[in-house]
């Protein structure tokens, strides 16, 4: 190209993008999209009533319920639960109830950006 065309461009660091904007995807959890701060209510479990039917695990759109390592109790993941209340609706043992998120300390990743 003639000298009237620039060939050396200076892309600022914060605007650098991989080729074609094709990026590797996360395997287990997506750390760049923590949706826990979307919820207004959180599901609270009564372990006495829970029958380990795994309905909550199957229905949750954010995979926020899973069985612990020993296979004895359900564990709730607060980082991604959006408070959609589907688990409370589908629990056949009435073991889940909704409670206002403000009644609990912590349980949310504090973000600089919304999501």
């Amino acid at each position, binding site marked *: 190209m003639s000298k009237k065309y620039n060939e050396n461009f200076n892309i600022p660091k914060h605007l650098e993008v991989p080729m074609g904007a094709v990026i590797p995807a996360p395997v287990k959890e997506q750390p760049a999209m923590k949706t826990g701060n*979307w*919820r*207004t209510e959180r599901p609270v479990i009564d372990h006495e009533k829970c029958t380990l039917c795994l309905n909550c695990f199957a229905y949750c759109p954010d995979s926020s319920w899973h069985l612990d390592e020993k296979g004895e109790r359900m564990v709730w993941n607060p980082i991604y639960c959006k408070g959609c209340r589907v688990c409370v609706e589908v629990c056949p043992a009435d073991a889940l109830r909704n409670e206002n998120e403000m009644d609990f300390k912590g349980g949310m990743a504090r973000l*600089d950006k919304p*999501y």
Partner: protein
Amino acid sequence: MSNVSTAKAAQDLYEITIWCSGVTQDMEGRHLSLLLANAASKDGKHTQAWDNYADLPDRVGVPLRKYARICDEEIEMRYLYENATPHMSIVMNDVILKGIDVLRGMEKGGVLVVNTKRPVDEILKLIPNKDLLSAIVTVDATGIAGGSGLESLDFMGSEGGVEATAVGAGLSAPLVGAAAKVCDKFTLESLVAVAANKAGVKEGNKQAVVKTL
């Protein structure tokens, strides 16, 4: 020609950022920015009110931002995506404070208005950078407006449309009344004039608790 690259236009803009929850509070959040802009416009100022483009299309519960700007002269940079330095931040759903830094970009001396039933000190514990604030206002707007507080289900005004229902009929009315207590860019009279729920505006102004910091 030496000063061409430094010719600056520093405008004195009052910036307001509103945080609300997606879908259920989208309309009320937008009405809040419209009420503040319309009231300031009635008082003779130049205003802008718009939604954050990247937060839409909204999903249930996602934190949304709405913006308003007030200026004594014609606003020059109209085409921006965000308010970089908000002077007032209004939070429509207090749970948002748990997970998000709503004072992002604020310079020292800003104000925060929160819709909550809880006492002020409990709210302040959730804000690590509260030293930026000159005052915090709390009001139970949900209680004053009636209903569960999660009630806007009319989307005609989003995506550049015209509002189909009356502006300021619900949750936004008491919040603007509360905001008037810590800001002189709009008067309570103008807010009452432009809102549909006039009693709500006055009640919000009456019940709002201001704590200077």
